[in-house]
């Protein structure tokens, strides 16, 4: 779309062009290739979350199996193949560590270099603490500031993010990208993989700022190639200037769908439909006014998106929910509930809210409580964002949805507080930040009141998959529920739901809700699958790479 091909790689022998900076997933999508892997049950899958969480975009890269196409840069000459479900053990490469293990011991470790993490880094660094930020992605910025990986002009959000990044670096924070944290252990020990070598962090304090991931619409057809989260499409477009497809439909609820729908339409996609579960704002004048009052600038942006979409003739259907998606005519047929006229699209984007990426926090034992309005856990924190674990702070969406402005205010508060607790800087007046935080949180409440992200029980036919990874369908889950599991963990053992590669990121919340409903108990912290090490799949060679360095450590 922009820029010239910088070479080619092959996918199952066919030549595919790539542009510099593109991920494999982006280059394949641009070439119209949507099926990346085969499942154990013979289905095909492609990009879904676009952010390294779903583990569904696996391909074989130069003989190395199970690489995530969304997290792997495209390089000229690569031999990419469809991932088979059971790769050969004998040919699994025996990678040697690319470099010796690196051990870092900053005063403060920040996990996640998005809105919250960068803000925390700036505050803590300015107070005098040494700060290292680890991020999974190559470029920092996080989901809100989504930085571009290809050359081209930046939009306003990207420029603001670039500015925040520059401030963090200028303040003297170190940012290490492409770090896959796979373990967090008591005493604040973090084990990670960084470009094929081990990275071991033993900070004095840690701020977790890992953000959120998207809640999908679990409906028939939600695993088909071409169906992806709205954020995945946003990343394709904003980071790689790749459209998810020519004709796109968006379903679910929330401001992201409207924003991304508009971005894609501006980028040249034909947005055939945006279906929003919530009623139109003009039908909810009081809620809309409350939103406008709580955050005039932001509410204005939202209303302007709606107006822009209308001007472009994009049909926005309020009060409309997805029924099913079917493969049809080399594309996807999208049917809404109670609707007789399905639309045809090349890509279907879904976002029905967000779930916090709180695995590291829960792994370390931080307490949380269930927030029934958002349908997810909120990490228990004091007003400095300290969790119940000594030395461990949580800021931004990973602690519970709050949005970018709140994440930044929390970051500033926690960064200062963590530094002060370590003896850097003293009495800090957080009044201004607390006030901004209050405002941002009020805005979020009013914003989400206009949408419909209430957690749902999957009211789907028996053959609809609930667990993408293990391919466990609703019928199997219902049979498992028939055995009266007292806990989601029991349902997991009975059905294998949540035992796959993504560690139950998508089916786990559903399992927690189903078990709660079946047993008549409230959902709570302990209703969820317990997070496990590794929090993301990690090559055993990478675990071994940490061994020597761990031995020497206290």
């Amino acid at each position, binding site marked *: 779309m922009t820029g010239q091909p910088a070479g080619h790689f092959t996918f199952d022998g066919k030549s595919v062009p790539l542009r510099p900076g593109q991920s494999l997933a982006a280059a394949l999508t641009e070439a119209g290739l949507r099926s990346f892997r085969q499942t154990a049950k013979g289905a095909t899958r492609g990009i879904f979350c676009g952010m390294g969480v779903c583990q569904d975009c696996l391909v074989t890269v130069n003989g190395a199996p199970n690489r995530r196409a969304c997290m792997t840069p495209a390089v000229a000459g690569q031999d990419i193949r469809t991932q088979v479900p059971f790769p050969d053990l004998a040919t699994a490469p025996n990678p040697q560590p690319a470099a010796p293990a690196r051990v870092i011991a900053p005063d403060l470790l920040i996990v996640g270099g998005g809105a919250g993490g960068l803000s925390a880094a700036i505050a803590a660094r300015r107070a005098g603490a040494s700060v290292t930020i680890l991020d999974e992605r190559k470029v920092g910025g996080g989901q809100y500031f989504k930085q571009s990986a290809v050359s081209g002009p930046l939009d306003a959000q990207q420029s603001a993010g670039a500015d925040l990044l520059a401030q963090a670096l200028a303040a003297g924070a170190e940012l290490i990208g492409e770090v896959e944290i796979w373990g967090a252990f008591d005493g604040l020990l973090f084990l990670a993989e960084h470009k094929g070598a081990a990275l071991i962090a033993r900070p004095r304090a840690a701020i977790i700022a890992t953000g959120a991931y998207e809640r999908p619409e679990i409906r028939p057809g939600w695993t088909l190639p071409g169906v992806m989260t709205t954020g995945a499409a946003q990343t394709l477009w904003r980071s790689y200037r790749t459209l998810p497809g020519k004709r796109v439909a968006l379903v679910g609820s929330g401001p992201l769908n409207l924003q991304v729908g508009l971005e894609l339409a501006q980028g040249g996609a034909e947005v055939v439909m945006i279906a929003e579960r919530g009623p139109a704002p003009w039908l909810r004048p009081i809620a809309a006014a409350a939103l406008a009052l709580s955050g005039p600038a932001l509410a204005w942006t939202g209303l302007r998106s709606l107006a822009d979409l209308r001007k472009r003739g994009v049909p926005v259907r309020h009060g409309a929910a997805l029924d099913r998606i079917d493969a049809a005519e080399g594309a996807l047929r999208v049917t809404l509930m109670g609707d007789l006229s399905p639309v045809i699209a090349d890509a279907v984007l879904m976002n029905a809210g967000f779930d916090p990426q709180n695995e590291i926090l829960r792994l370390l034992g931080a307490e949380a409580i269930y927030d029934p309005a958002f349908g997810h856990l909120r990490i228990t924190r004091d007003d400095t964002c300290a969790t119940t674990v000594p030395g461990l702070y949580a800021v931004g969406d990973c602690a519970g949805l709050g949005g970018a402005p709140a994440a930044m205010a929390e970051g500033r508060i926690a960064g200062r507080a963590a530094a002060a607790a370590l003896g850097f800087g003293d009495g800090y007046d957080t009044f201004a930040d607390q006030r901004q935080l209050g405002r941002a949180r009020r805005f979020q409440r009013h914003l989400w009141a206009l949408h419909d992200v209430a957690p749902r029980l999957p009211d789907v036919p028996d053959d609809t998959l609930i667990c993408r990874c293990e391919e466990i369908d609703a019928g199997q889950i219902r049979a498992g529920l028939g055995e009266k599991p007292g806990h989601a963990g029991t349902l997991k053992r009975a059905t294998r739901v949540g035992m796959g590669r993504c560690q139950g990121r998508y089916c786990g919340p559903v399992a927690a809700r189903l078990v709660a409903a079946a047993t008549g108990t409230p959902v709570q912290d302990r209703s969820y699958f317990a997070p496990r090490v590794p929090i993301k799949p*990690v090559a055993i060679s990478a675990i*071994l790479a940490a*061994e020597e360095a761990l031995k020497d450590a206290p």
Partner: protein
Amino acid sequence: MMQSKADVVVIGGGIAGLMTAMYLAEDGADVLLLEAGELGAQASGANAGSIHLQIQYPEFVAYGEAWARAYAPCLRLLTSSLTLWQGLSDRVGEDLQVKLAGGLVVARTETQMQAIAAKAHIEAEAGVETIVLNRSDLRDIAPYLAEDAIGAGYCAREGKANPLRATPAIAAAAERAGAVIHRHTRVIAIEAEGGGYTVVTDKGRVQAGRVVNAAGAAAGQIAGMLGLTLGIDGFPLQVTVTEPMAATIPHLIYSAAGKLSLKQVANGGLVIGGGWPAARRGDGLVTDPRSLTGNMGMAAGVVPSVAGVRALRSWTAWVNGTPDWRPILGEAPGLPGFFLALFPWVGFSAGPMTARITADLVMGRPPTLPLKGISVLAD
């Protein structure tokens, strides 16, 4: 409301308790099983699924031949338990993924080969055949092993089963046979009276003529309720599973270099464990990083290609352990009608026979296998 009387109360819904209840119900007894939490949620559901037979190599080296000779009679129980495992899928009507393709203790030094041979000798005396394979024989049957493997002890009857499937299927079979199972019912006291027992739970009291203690790692606490001290305790362990790979490893793999069990399970994943300790946090358990790296290193030392495979998940659980590895099976001394069904460390492998023998004793029959030399209660 809970029933207030039963012929037999079984405490503990792991493999030992559930299968004992199954056999007893099949024998016509009126059985009530009490489980504090969920069935098979402790060791019996969280174990690595190895069906062991041969004497564990690390213990053989650590404790020596005298210990091995004292333990060897237990191999008779394991042998007969394996036979029960082979028929168990048919018996409970579900595929428990039992595959007994043999276990290999892989050696890399001559000293290790000598220890394997000495161990094989003791095993042979207990009726268990372990073949000492040389390098080329080993490569023929297990080409996936490290180049520097110079031989192995091969015990052809060992293998694996799926613990996630086993306990629910056994529980269902027990219920079909007429056993009543109460989950979420914790035993908090036991009172001996009038030749029987009153089992006090957090849900009510039950009178029973006979009581079976199959509480695994918590069996010592249950026995303590009657003033009995048992040399059994809980030890925290962890296990790791990898992503699925093409079926390559039929065997159960051990290493002579240290603690390891490695197997490829039915869905293609590699389950890697072998007795590495988990870390404690409060009342709970969490993965220990040093055990994880140590365990993975042990695995990659024997099967080098696992280094390129991704670990997906580790988990932790308490195992029931006794210092001498011998089981505590039979009627408790001085407590008529109170039975102990406790097979330590490899209690998944031994579960079926532990249950068979316990059911025999509860029903007042001589045990299917004489316990002399096996149970510490029969010395």
